[in-house]
């Protein structure tokens, strides 16, 4: 076979090198999705991160892998997987992911045939999709698009390689020549061989693929066959932020070090946004050994009401025109749902195993969600008090018929001298008895006077059995929110007020682009709840300096003013708006969204059509008016001259203009080929494609050949020849 190529082409070894490179790239993209999954595969990930670049850069190393490795690979991988699976029977997904990583590793370090290349694509797709399903992160969108682009390019190169290899003898044993790669030379060759027009067209086509997939995504009919998300049940989520029932003192400060997004909140009615945003998640009601924790009674009170449900009914009554809050809780934030207060109803997408404690107002999922969780709240109360019972009802544990007693919220198990100190401090605060609000303000003032605020707090050393909070209060050293809240709780309990710690987030930032409130882990906070017996409600008390201690501040602004105060226009907020768009429009896209989309499209089309009709009607009326207006000689002659000028321009261009243009461009175009010659060549090709032996084309062909091959000095008028050729061909087709 022979061929005259105008542009150089990659040869078979170069295509093999490109294939190897793309395979490595694909493996790299795929394995890094594991970062978003909570699987223990760090060793494998590190190994792959090291192996992929090394083996990709030096493909010859793959031939040095001893033969026994290939022989043992399958049984060893299978055995490791079996052992891994047996030791993680409750969570089968992580062993499967680790197996996929091991297979990718094996394929990366050994020479690959076509089947092995396909295996890399399938394994990579598996990892990317599982990572996406488990994380529901916007990064998945980027990963799947990049992965698809690389995979398509990879498949294209595989097809080209197979086409070139067809019929060639298979070389076995020795190291193939292509494995000695000079990457710089390959890059140079790629630059030489790739036609930029083809590359642009390829890019446009891939953009078309993404666009088409977006259209398909919106158009695919949605109906639910079942409701069992299989993958997230095969893996147990772990709280990443530390907001769990086992939270310890100091954990909140650790959480504050992370600036990642914890949740985003949409609110339908901005005027309902309260002046102070306290996203309550947990209460710690038991104080022992210098630390607050969630009592067993609270834990059990939540667990026992756990049920598979898509809706949770709250205590708050339904209201007309109540605002709707949509929460997007990030992966691994907590299994306790952040709330501003009481609510009427929470709705989830699909059924969840969820528990709601009417005694504490906490809502908890059975497991920490391993992917983004969206839930919708209606009738949320945003005040600073919670109408909840003072004590948790005593619960009979079914197994041993024992009664589980809730801890006392006023008693403290402290040393006598510590109790004395606390009593002295309470006396120093000097608040009137029976007024928790006054006590809260007084105690907070007292604490703020003695301690500054600092995240780097140190508790003064003392006796080993001495209470750390009492030591801190005694020291006067600065402290963080947990110390202030803990100290307040001790003081309040000493004063006889039932008090507990509340944990969650405080504040947030308003993203005007996505029109949502973003709460980051750095907004983690601890505060207190004190029971007001007169009001029969728990009051929020925030003793941390700089906070409003109790209730809403005087002349507190709400709604838009609050949002303007917390508005964030940074680049991070812009990226955050993308994430919110992803959650709202993509992750939560459902049948209702489809119907809405169709309605909106129809509405938009109707509006545009109406506007077009209106414009056309107006234009028609204007034209009628213009024609109906009196025509005098001057007007008629002006328009006649203009029409004649246009006609002359068109005719002149067709007769001489184009020819002159072609002549002027002579020698300036690609390859230095005269455009007249090229045009003549084009017509000659058309004629030769037409039927043979046409007499009326023969003379045109001769003239065209003169233009194509003859001396330019002897050329006939080119445009006339081209017109004749066009006429002759048109006549022949008729």
């Amino acid at each position, binding site marked *: 076979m022979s061929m005259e190529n105008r542009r150089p082409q990659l040869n078979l070894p170069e295509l093999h090198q490109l294939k190897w490179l793309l395979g490595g790239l694909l493996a790299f993209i795929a394995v890094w999705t594991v970062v978003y999954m909570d699987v223990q595969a760090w060793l494998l990930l590190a190994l792959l991160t090291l192996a992929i670049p090394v083996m990709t850069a030096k493909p010859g190393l793959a031939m040095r892998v001893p033969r026994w490795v290939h022989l043992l690979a399958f049984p060893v991988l299978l055995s490791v997987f079996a052992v891994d699976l047996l030791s993680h029977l409750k969570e089968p997904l992580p062993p499967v992911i680790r197996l996929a990583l091991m297979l990718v590793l094996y394929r990366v370090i050994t020479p690959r045939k076509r089947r092995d290349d396909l295996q890399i694509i399938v394994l990579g797709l598996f990892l990317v999709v599982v990572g996406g399903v488990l994380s529901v992160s916007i990064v998945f969108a980027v990963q799947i698009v990049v992965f698809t682009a690389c995979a398509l390019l990879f498949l294209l190169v595989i097809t080209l390689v197979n086409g070139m290899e067809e019929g060639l003898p298979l070389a076995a044993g020795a190291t193939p020549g292509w494995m000695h790669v000079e990457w710089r030379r390959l890059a140079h060759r790629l630059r030489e061989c790739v036609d930029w027009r083809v590359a642009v067209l390829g890019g446009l086509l891939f953009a078309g693929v993404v666009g088409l997939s977006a259209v398909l*995504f919106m158009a695919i009919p949605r109906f639910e066959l079942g409701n069992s998300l*299989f993958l997230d049940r095969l893996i147990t989520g772990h709280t990443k932020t530390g907001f769990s029932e086992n939270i310890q003192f100091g954990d909140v400060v650790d959480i504050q070090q992370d600036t990642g997004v914890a949740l985003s909140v949409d609110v339908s009615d901005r005027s309902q946004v309260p002046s102070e945003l306290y996203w309550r998640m947990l209460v710690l009601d038991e104080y022992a050994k210098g630390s607050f924790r969630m009592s067993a009674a609270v834990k059990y009170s939540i667990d026992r009401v756990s049920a598979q449900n898509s809706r949770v009914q709250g205590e708050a009554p339904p209201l007309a025109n109540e605002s709707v809050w949509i929460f997007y809780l990030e992966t691994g934030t907590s299994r306790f749902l952040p709330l501003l207060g009481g609510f009427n109803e929470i709705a989830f997408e699909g059924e969840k195993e969820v528990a709601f404690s009417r005694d504490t107002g906490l809502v908890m999922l059975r497991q920490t969600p391993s992917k983004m969780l969206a839930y919708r709240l209606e009738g949320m109360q945003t005040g600073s008090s919670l109408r909840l019972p003072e004590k948790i009802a005593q619960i009979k544990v079914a197994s041993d018929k024992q009664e589980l007693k809730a801890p006392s919220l006023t008693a403290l198990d402290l040393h006598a001298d510590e109790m004395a100190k606390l009593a002295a401090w309470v006396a120093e605060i000097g608040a009137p008895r029976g007024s928790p609000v006054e006590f809260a303000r007084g105690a907070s003032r007292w604490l703020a006077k003695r301690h500054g605020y600092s995240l780097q707090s140190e508790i003064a050393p003392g006796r080993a059995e001495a209470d750390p909070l009492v030591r801190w209060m005694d020291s006067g050293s600065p402290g963080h929110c947990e110390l202030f809240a803990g100290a307040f709780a001790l003081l309040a309990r000493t004063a006889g007020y039932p008090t507990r710690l509340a944990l969650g987030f405080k504040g947030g930032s308003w993203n005007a682009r996505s029109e949502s409130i973003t709460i980051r882990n750095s907004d983690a906070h601890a505060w207190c709840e004190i029971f007001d017996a007169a009001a029969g409600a728990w009051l929020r008390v925030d003793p941390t300096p700089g906070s409003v201690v109790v209730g809403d501040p005087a002349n507190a602004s709400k709604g838009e003013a609050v949002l303007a105060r917390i508005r964030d226009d940074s680049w991070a907020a812009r990226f955050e708006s993308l994430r919110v768009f992803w959650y709202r429009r993509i992750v939560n896209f459902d049948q209702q969204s489809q119907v809405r989309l169709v309605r909106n499209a129809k509405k938009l089309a109707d509006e545009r059509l109406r506007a077009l009709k209106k414009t056309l009607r107006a234009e028609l009326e204007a034209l009628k008016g213009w024609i109906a207006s009196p025509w005098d000689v001057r007007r008629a002659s002006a328009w006649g001259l203009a029409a004649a000028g246009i006609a002359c321009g068109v005719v002149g261009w067709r007769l001489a203009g184009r020819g002159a243009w072609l002549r002027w461009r002579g020698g300036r175009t690609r390859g230095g080929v005269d455009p007249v010659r090229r045009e003549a060549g084009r017509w000659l090709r058309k004629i030769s494609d037409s039927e*043979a032996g046409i007499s009326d084309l023969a003379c045109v062909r001769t003239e065209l050949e003169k233009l194509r091959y003859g001396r330019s000095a002897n050329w006939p008028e080119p445009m006339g020849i081209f017109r004749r050729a066009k006429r002759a061909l048109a006549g022949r087709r008729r």
Partner: protein
Amino acid sequence: MSTAETVSSDARGVAAATDWNGVGFRGARNRSRRWSRLLWSLVYPQRGQRILPTVPGTLLIAVSLGIGTAAYNTSSNILFITLSLLLACLVSSGVLSWFNLKGVTWRLRVTPPLRVGRDHAVMLELRNAKRVLPTYGLWFDFMATGVAKPVRRALAWRLDPEGDTHIEWTFCPQKRGAATVELVAVGSLFPFGFLRKIIGSELRREVLVWPAPVEYRRFPLVSWRQPGLGEQKATVGQGGDLLALRPYAQGDSQRAVHWKASARLRRLVVRQFATEMQAGFSLWVQTAAEAWTRPEQFELLCSFAATLAEDLFRSGRLASVALNDEPSHPVRSVRDLELFLDRLALAVPVDQPYQPTTSAGAGRRFNLLTFAPDGARGVLAHVDGKPAATA
């Protein structure tokens, strides 16, 4: 014109412009019909057009089905996104494949003569009429009479826009007679190898395969003598000394025309060379079925006759040829010899006994070369009834 001549003229390899074939080649002439033709071809594909999933394609379909089932089962939009992307990839594969084949035309060239037992090149000319996009990864399945299964030749390299190339297939005919060389199908895995697209092609060439040349042995016979007085060849000789001028006869080469003498005499006159005075043989092949009962012996007859005819023509001593009861045809040019070989290619044993006619006999008065079976396998050539050569 006889059937053999019709076939033969086609077999000369004079391919017309209409020989070009390709996907939607004819439809491309009329822009208004192009889309309707394309749409109709989607509903009712052309004959032989098939799309078959490959291993990656089957895998992709299986993965798509699995992800689709999981997506519907879980309402996970992540899975719906993946499913959409996979489907979009399939669609883009089809679009790219269509772009790849669009504007590609091909035509088949078979250059005669074809002879049994000899390799011949079948050439497929390819042309890419696209202005920007190259074409990759096509393969072509060739078939010919006597070839058991289609032979595949691939376009291993890129076919540039507005470029052309050719693909060669060498095949060796095994049997004399009319044969068909055909481009059975054009296929492609481009771009991603998901689907094997096969386009049925009805591009074929009818060719004649001449008998195979054979080794033979000449007897030292006086019949291979020099010509006697008045025994002249009918055609102009190609070598030797110039003897005289004579009037032009049909079949004479134009190169032998003596233009000055022709102008002077106002009629065409050709140069007469010494080779024309050599002995001319009349070759008469009789294919009576009762004489040639064994097929392999009959094949040997055809091969022997063809070889002798060529050898005699090459030495300028073939005067005329005849097959059975056909009138004797003078052999003045290569064209006459080729026509005789074409007839030999199609020769079969005939049941009718040969009845010599006066006209036929006139050309066979001297040095009449005839053939007869020689035992069970061989063939004997006689000159004027005397054994002259054997094969």
